[in-house]
């Protein structure tokens, strides 16, 4: 006993000291951290007002990390709309997909992206190597609005630029030269149409970019438009346009306006490829968008230690926002376990399964809680009812559990689909509900109800839900999520706390109630 207690005390002390030292050391280095030379931090803000929402999806292109820039932090505020973030593989872009919530006819989407621009000491290729499929090549060679391919005027210019002897890359250079020298930047009323630009010899940036695309595509070189921003302080930042041409399995960026060919300064942040719109929808709708850019002083929490330092392994904020989200969830799990342990060992609340409450809470952390709750209760009620019916079939346990699992999956999908049909768009994260856990919970609920009565089953169910709710309230707290991500060392302190609880031999809170009659009674036979 004494030996164990000493061992426990030492383990706890070592864990706490190691954890605290790590946190302290990292905090200190964070406060002293300076950005390496040439690196800058910028904040790009979207403020999109949607005054008349009608339904249907709206796609908003958002920045993603490139070899030159890293989106290290982002935050979204979306009133009256539901949002999800998707990645489009083909054009290497990210989109926020927003859908109005029923009952809201006005929405506002505000997003902030904090971008770290790396220094340009080592030139890197701005885009990774890709192999386009035939359909993709066709797509990037076809005619579209304001990009007129078959016009004789275009053919005429192209024939001046090409001859049979020269190869494609030479043609590309000539096209670029033509667009940057023979088309001048137009002022008021300048055209943004490709043909117009070539005919008049003056155009907007968009017109010049389109003119280059027309010439490239006519010369059978796949080309596409890129819409993005220059990172420079601006309250009302203008969208910028440039071109990417596909050559030798790379998409090469070209900006005829500023004369960049094959590479761009890192201040060019691409937002959407293949389109001029940042906000896009299949429906016609009104919106007012304002984009602003400002330079940030590196905040103290921003880790900008020199790269390739081993210490950086502990810095999880250097990972991409998508990865950070998943890692935060994982890091929250032990915290949920701590809460569950407190409830079970100190308060004495019974739950179905040890970590069921923590896992249920975790699946709600990122989901919209309303859809989560609807899906949860549909799955649970249908599951329990189905289990009652299954009882009559008298199946063996594993088969029965598998049937329930199948039904749980079906219910979940149906619930999501019904919600969608009713216009209450479900969040994809609701589907993350731990299905196997739900199945086991339904089974345990039924066995408990059968063996110990419905009262006991509901009591344990209520306990499970209460603990899950407490876990949820704590884990949903944004500051806690940020904290566990910034300092994974907190897990050591968490482990120390768990060890202390694991050696707690005092009364559980519910025992004060359970054994109250012993304290009250006299010596014998008194009630």
């Amino acid at each position: 006993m004494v030996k164990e207690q000493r061992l426990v005390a030492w383990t706890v002390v070592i864990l706490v000291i190691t954890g605290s030292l790590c946190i302290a050391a990292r905090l200190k280095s964070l406060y002293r951290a300076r950005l390496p030379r040439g690196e800058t931090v910028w904040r790009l803000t979207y403020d999109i007002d949607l005054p008349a929402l009608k339904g249907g999806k709206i796609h908003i292109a958002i920045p993603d990390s490139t070899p030159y820039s890293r989106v290290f932090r982002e935050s979204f505020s979306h009133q009256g709309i539901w949002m999800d973030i998707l990645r489009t593989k083909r054009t290497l872009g990210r989109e926020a997909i927003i859908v109005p919530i029923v009952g809201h006819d006005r929405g506002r989407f505000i997003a902030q992206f904090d971008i770290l621009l790396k220094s340009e000491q080592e030139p890197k290729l701005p885009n990774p190597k890709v192999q386009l499929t035939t359909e993709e090549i066709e797509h990037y060679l076809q005619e579209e609005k304001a990009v007129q391919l078959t016009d004789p005027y275009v053919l005429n210019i192209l024939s001046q630029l090409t001859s049979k002897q020269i190869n494609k890359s030479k043609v590309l250079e000539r096209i670029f030269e033509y667009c940057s020298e023979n088309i001048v930047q137009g002022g008021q009323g300048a055209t943004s149409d490709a043909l117009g630009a070539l005919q008049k010899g003056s155009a907007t940036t968009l017109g010049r970019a389109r003119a280059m695309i027309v010439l490239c595509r006519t010369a059978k070189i796949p080309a596409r438009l890129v819409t993005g921003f220059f990172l420079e302080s601006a309250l009302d930042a203008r969208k910028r346009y440039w071109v990417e041409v596909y050559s030798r399995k790379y998409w090469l960026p070209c900006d005829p306006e500023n004369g960049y060919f094959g590479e761009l300064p890192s201040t060019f942040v691409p937002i959407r490829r293949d389109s001029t719109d940042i906000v896009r929808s299949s429906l016609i709708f009104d919106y007012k968008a304002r984009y602003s850019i400002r330079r940030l002083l590196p905040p103290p929490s921003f880790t900008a230690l020199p790269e390739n330092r081993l210490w950086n392994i502990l810095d999880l904020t250097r990972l991409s926002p998508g990865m950070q989200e998943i890692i935060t969830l994982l890091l929250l799990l032990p915290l949920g376990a701590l809460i569950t342990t407190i409830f079970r060992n100190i308060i004495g609340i019974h739950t179905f399964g040890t970590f069921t409450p923590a896992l249920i809470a975790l699946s709600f952390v990122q989901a919209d809680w309303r859809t989560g709750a609807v899906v949860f209760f549909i799955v649970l009620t249908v599951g329990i009812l189905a289990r009652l019916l299954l009882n009559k079939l008298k199946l063996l346990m594993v088969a029965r559990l598998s049937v329930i699992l199948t039904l749980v999956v079906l219910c979940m999908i149906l619930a999501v689909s019904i919600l969608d049909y009713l216009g209450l768009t479900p969040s994809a994260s609701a589907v993350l509900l731990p299905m196997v856990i739900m199945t086991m919970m339904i089974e345990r609920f039924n066995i408990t109800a059968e063996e110990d009565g419905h009262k006991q089953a509901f009591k344990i169910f209520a306990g499970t839900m209460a603990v899950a709710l407490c876990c949820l309230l704590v884990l949903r707290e944004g500051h806690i999520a940020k904290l566990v991500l910034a300092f994974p060392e907190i897990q050591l302190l968490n482990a120390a706390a768990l060890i202390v609880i694991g050696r707690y031999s005092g009364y559980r809170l519910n025992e004060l109630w359970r054994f109250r009659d012993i304290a009250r009674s006299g010596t014998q036979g008194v009630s």
Partner: protein
Amino acid sequence: MRAILPRFWAWPSQLRKRGVLGINRRNLNYLFEANPRSVYKLADDKAVTKTICREHGIPVPETYAVIKRFGDLQQLSEIIDGRDEFVVKPAGGSGGRGVLVIIARNNGLFDIANGQMISLSGLRYHISTTLSGLYSLAGQPDHVILEQRIVPHPVFEKLAVRGTPDTRIIMYRGSPVMAMLRLPTKASKGRANLHQGAVAVGINLQTGQTFGGVYFDRAVTIHPDTGIDVGGVTIPCWDEVLRIAGNVSNIIKIGYIGIDIMLDAQHGPLVLEVNARPGLSVQIANRCGLLPTLQQIDSKLSSSTPVDASKKLVLDLAQVHLNQNLS
């Protein structure tokens, strides 16, 4: 404050004063310390417990068959052929879960002690779900024991409702610490499981007389179904019961153990099962905490002494316990 609040709960200091053992302390100081993991299987598998007991001449209910595989189910009708009353019991179950007490045959159907009926195919299904682990501790595949049905001793006739009462004796390092008589009720559906609503009555270790009582963790003195006073009943063959419990704890080297013994009208005390994690409601039934006795045993036995102890000590401690109850 203190004058009003104890109606709803007791202060930790009050419980400590009464020597109440809480679940955390039971796990840390008694189960971890006294019950080595490796011997749990002797208690958790009732078929194993029975075999060990039988080998050492400790009376247990007669086993008709142990069904281990689904294939064995084909012989079910042969096994129960000519038997009108028997018990179907999961070897790895706990709290009376999955136990079927068959009391008669009726036109091809079997009457269950709780008043329901079951067909042969229903019985087969029940056994097969048990084999696949429905009632076992961790859902692992299980065995099923078919054994002799115990006819309750006439002394319990008025107290037992739809089931058979049993006595549980808590033994610690070879000495009896506390005992209770568990009586099935309507709420417990004929099972002697306190969580399901059985009534338990404390037993004076020295005299074998019942006193106190607990029902759903509340102190009671009467049977909730019949209103009959549960105190003052003398358990027949009490010395024999204590002697058997002592023998069991000497054979099965589990330091902290609950031994369930039933009193058959014909065969006397029979060991039903042993529990390596006995519950704590016995304290409410006895209106007294377990800790003082446990600590006394620890201080009397140096920690190097093996689990078995002299009969003298057993009686000494019984005396200690009695004094405590009367003080």
